[in-house]
């Protein structure tokens, strides 16, 4: 049949308006933005700001009252809604898994309505379960109620990926998870995204999640108006107005630091790398640590620099790291961190 991996496609909102019947104020007001192919765009805003409405117009669960949305070079108006939806991955909060179907049955939903044969469907289900880290042998025949919240969310993502859609819509997918599980599933999703490079529109009301997940963030204000559309670093550095500044929070400088890693800094040479003459007063952090954790460590330890270490030896295994002495790459000073944060 056709090639298995569909190219990601860009999504364009072109002066999109949605006014619900019986309401004079639009829920989404003249929304214009472009999500480049293969990027994650987070729609962020308080409740009632129209971000979910904007998302649901992409797969025509809600019909726009004005403007146009294009996926690739095709307007969604020209496509049959049912076929359009089958070509778009859709993940919602609480996953919306079907409790009466097994995990395999859930993931096979779209392949089945698309008329795939049994063999192809089963292969795809197994492939996707492996992809999200749930061994098919153990999980395929279970029911959603038998999984943990994080596992259910991974199944939700696998189900959305079933027909290998070029575009994915995610509506607060991790909203119901506890903070620790949420962070883990976010990391897993980012790793997955690194491999699959779908165009993703992701609704969230959590600025930290948006900063973590988004290549770009679109901040909505009440009345469905776009307040700012920018990359996270840009957004945190230069909020367009008071509303955005308030929404991203007074700690936006720290949030910005959490986007940068020690390894990206120009490090000062460490005097006598690894030597004990400074009495171990300078704490160490791996190059992959964020500037935010470096700053936090400096504040906690009352020092003005941290030693940055590289990977231990050649083996990149976490278990082996304890044995081998990691090489010291250099010194990151408080000043360097501050400068990088405001650059």
């Amino acid at each position, binding site marked *: 049949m056709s090639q298995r991996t569909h190219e990601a496609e860009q999504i364009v909102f072109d002066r999109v308006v949605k006014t619900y019947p019986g309401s004079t104020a639009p829920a989404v007001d003249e929304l214009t933005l472009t999500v480049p192919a293969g990027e994650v765009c987070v729609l962020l805003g308080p409740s009632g700001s129209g971000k979910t409405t904007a998302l649901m117009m992409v797969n025509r*669960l809600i019909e726009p009252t004005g403007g146009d949305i294009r996926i690739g070079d095709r307007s969604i108006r020209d496509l049959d809604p049912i076929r359009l939806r089958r070509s778009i991955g859709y993940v919602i909060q609480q996953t919306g898994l*079907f*409790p*009466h*179907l097994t995990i395999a049955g859930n993931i096979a939903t779209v392949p089945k*309505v698309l008329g795939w044969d049994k063999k192809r469907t089963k292969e795809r289900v197994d492939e996707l379960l492996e992809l999200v880290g749930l061994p098919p042998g153990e999980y395929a025949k279970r*029911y*959603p109620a038998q999984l943990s919240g994080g596992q259910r969310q991974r199944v939700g993502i696998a189900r*959305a990926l079933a027909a290998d859609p070029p575009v994915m819509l995610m509506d607060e997918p991790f909203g119901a998870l506890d903070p620790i599980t949420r962070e883990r599933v976010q990391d897993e999703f980012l790793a997955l995204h690194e491999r699959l490079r779908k165009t993703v529109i992701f609704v969230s009301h959590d600025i930290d999640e948006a900063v973590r997940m988004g290549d770009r963030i679109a901040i909505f204000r009440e009345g469905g108006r776009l307040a700012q559309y920018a990359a996270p670093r840009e957004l945190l550095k230069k909020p367009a107005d008071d509303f955005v500044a308030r929404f991203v929070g007074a700690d936006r400088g720290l949030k910005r630091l959490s986007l940068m890693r020690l390894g990206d800094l120009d490090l000062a040479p460490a005097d006598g790398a690894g030597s004990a003459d400074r009495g171990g007063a300078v704490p160490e952090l791996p190059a992959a640590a964020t500037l935010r954790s470096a700053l936090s460590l400096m504040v906690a330890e009352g020092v003005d620099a941290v030693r940055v270490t590289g990977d231990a030896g050649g083996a990149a295994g976490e278990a082996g790291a304890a044995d081998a002495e990691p090489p010291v790459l250099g010194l990151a000073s408080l000043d360097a961190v501050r400068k990088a944060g405001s650059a």
Partner: protein
Amino acid sequence: MNGVLLQTARVPGLLSAAGQHQGHGGGPVIPDYGTPSRCVAADGTFCPDWFASHWRVLFWPALLQHIELTVIAVVAGFLIAVAAAVLAHFQGWFAAPCSAVSSFLYTVPPLALFQLLVPVSGFSVLTVELALVAYSLYLLFTTILTGLREVPEDAVRAARGMGLTRRQILFKVELPLALPSLVSGLRVATVMTVATVAIAAYVIDAGLGSLILKALQSPFNTQFIGAGALAVALALAADGLLVLAGRLLTPWARSRRAA
């Protein structure tokens, strides 16, 4: 009411039961019914030997008739109720009139309903089934509609978002998820119908109710008690079967476990 009651004046079972004529030699003008057992002769409350010896001619056929009347009524009522509930689920305005009509039918006493129908459809199985179906609709319609409405909203939204058609959502998501409600509605309706079929003896000479009705006019109690017990057992068995079928159909509902 008299017209209905007249129907049941014949009491064939009891004649053979009492066995009041013993055949002496000579011209057997009266057939020989054999010698009654001690229990029967003493007019015991319940005579197992009599029950056993009349199982094939009396109780078993009546039980089969009872089952048949029940199954037809429940299946027909179920199909109508499902269709009405689905319609009401799709078109909200349809729910109120459906509910009003079925609850009105439910409040009419079954005997009165039989009486009302006899002039139309006579002393027939049709009359009985019409009344039974009318009687079961309210319970079935209400539970099925509730079941459909209580399907988790996010499951339906996910199904829409994935590109399932309205019909696919109904058959692949909503009806399967409403199964527990469907089954509980069926259970109540079935048990109720088993009981109501017994009253149908006023209209047709069939079912366990017919045996009970005839026995009421006799001091001999075994037939009355036997048929009554069978009706109770039938209701319990049908209920049990439905519980079992429900479990088999909804393996997901009992697979919950702390995760």
